[in-house]
């Protein structure tokens, strides 16, 4: 069991052992990077085809089914098409920024994977302030989006970029705030520590994951919603709404650069999903004591896959929001709830652990504002909006 659990680590060290001693740290690092890029690169390919097939099933049609067995070579075909397409740069574009934007979007996202623990002892860098690193790196992608939108010198691109930035800024607040109670619970910013803090079981079988507390559950929901918005997933994908903005800041991109954006978005989704797993679902911990024989990275993958499926499902189910609804939802609903959640989490650790009372108190403190806020915002009629540019 232990061998299986640590198989990747053993392989990595075994390979690094072939290199001369002074270079070994470097080789270890390079192997981590290569592993991450290989796994998540193929994960990207797999997800695109699975998403299309699942969406097809949910919409009562076949997905892609021509290329390869059951259409599973579709990503390869797409990739070949993308890479061989002509790279068009608009005449009036700011050439340098136009070139740099996809790079600036993709690189930070790859970096974010460095701190995620994918299994026991399996994180590329063990960092004291890991989660801070994650969010700090993530903030760079906003500038990349702006670069893309502005350098295209195209109104739709600029508007799309501005929408994307507004959305990312707005949803970053609830995203971080929803994660903070977990940090408080673990008393650390380091992701392996956070996973470790969720080991053990209550009464011998209920895992001590954060999602099994009132504040954890609420935080998990908030986190998922904000994560969907952060990675421009449906129902929050209006920055690139093809029907309104002809794909927003992506309008002027084609070929390989477009593929990079595409890759960057999916990788962003993977990274933030991995973080959700780590923060709320116990990371690589097994869900029951008698299931611990299964390797830790296996559990991580399972939880990860389940969450990705959830996102695909949401895409098939929910319609796209309007911009003002989107922002109001962030600032007037998610942020207050996240703050209340923060308070409840603090209360949770101060109230003596007499289980039912603590549960009822904290759950009540969360449910009441939730219902109240929901009623308020449900009750308001959509207001007439004036679009000056339309006429």
């Amino acid at each position, binding site marked *: 069991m232990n061998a299986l659990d640590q198989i990747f680590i053993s392989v990595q060290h075994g390979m690094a052992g072939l290199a001369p001693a002074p270079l070994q740290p470097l080789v270890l690092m390079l192997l981590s990077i290569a592993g991450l890029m290989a796994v998540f690169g193929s994960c990207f390919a797999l997800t695109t085809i699975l998403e299309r097939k699942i969406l097809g099933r949910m919409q009562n049609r076949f997905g892609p089914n021509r290329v390869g067995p059951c259409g599973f070579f579709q990503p390869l075909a797409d990739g070949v098409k993308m890479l061989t397409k002509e790279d068009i740069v608009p005449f009036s574009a700011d050439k340098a920024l136009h070139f740099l934007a996809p790079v600036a979007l993709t690189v930070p996202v790859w970096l974010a994977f460095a701190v995620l623990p994918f299994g026991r002892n399996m994180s590329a860098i063990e960092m004291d302030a890991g989660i*801070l690193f994650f969010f700090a790196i993530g903030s*760079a992608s906003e500038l990349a989006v702006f670069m893309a939108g502005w350098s295209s010198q195209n109104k739709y691109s600029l508007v799309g970029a501005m929408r994307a930035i*507004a959305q990312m800024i707005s949803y970053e607040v609830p995203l971080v705030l929803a994660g903070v109670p977990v940090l408080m619970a673990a008393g650390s910013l380091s992701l392996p520590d956070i996973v470790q803090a969720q080991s053990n079981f209550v009464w011998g079988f209920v895992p001590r994951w954060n999602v099994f507390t009132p504040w954890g559950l609420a935080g998990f929901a908030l986190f998922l919603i904000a994560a969907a918005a952060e990675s421009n997933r449906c129902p929050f994908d209006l920055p690139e709404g093809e029907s309104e903005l002809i794909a927003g800041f992506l309008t002027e991109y084609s070929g390989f650069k477009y593929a990079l954006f595409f890759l960057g978005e999916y990788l962003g989704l993977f990274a933030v999903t991995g973080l959700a797993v780590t923060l709320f679902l116990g990371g690589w911990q097994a869900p029951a004591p008698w299931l611990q024989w299964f390797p830790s990275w296996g559990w991580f993958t399972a939880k990860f896959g389940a969450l990705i499926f959830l996102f695909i499902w949401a895409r098939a189910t929910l319609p796209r929001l309007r911009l003002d609804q989107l922002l109001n939802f962030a600032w007037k609903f998610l942020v207050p709830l996240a703050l209340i959640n923060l308070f409840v989490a603090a209360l949770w650790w101060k109230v003596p652990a007499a289980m039912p009372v603590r549960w009822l108190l904290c759950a009540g403190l969360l449910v009441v504002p939730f219902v109240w806020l929901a009623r308020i915002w449900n009750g308001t009629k959509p207001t007439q909006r004036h679009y*000056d540019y339309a006429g």
Partner: protein
Amino acid sequence: MPGEIAFYLIAVFTVAFAAAAMTLRRLVHCALCAAAAFAGLAMIYLQLDAEFVGFAQLLVYVGAIAILIVFAVLLTRGDEVAPGNKQSSPSWMAGAAVAALVLAAMAVAILHSPSLHRLAPSGAEAPVRRIGGELMTRYILPLEMIGVLLTGALLGAVVIAMRDEPETKQPARDVAPKPAEPLEALNSR
């Protein structure tokens, strides 16, 4: 030795982008270069073992301030460069001279200081846990003040930048929160 090389690389990177941020013609380029310079500084902090500060720098400067600057550039149409419009103020030479004077003075001061060749003591680190502890005990009052200050700045910025509604009689519309505002302004272009 690798540390030293890394430092010089980052230092050159930072200074180059800072200089570019101050000299380029288009404001958007300036803002982006400034963001790069801020990121370079964050790397220097990391290189100095101040992990937390480095990430905070990245989060605040690249994630927030750079975005703010970019928004401000777009909202004030600062990116539109008219052909005959000079970008430097009439007495820019005086400014440059004073800056050079300041640099010279500081350089002289630094080069004369006794700590010229001091090397870093090993083992210095600022663990997050200790920073948190200090913030909650010794620096609690400054922390509170910063909280108040940020709240005040937030409110103040919203109030200052808020557009004066032309007709005040109309009942208050569903006022969109701050990030929505620039968009509306943009839409109206």
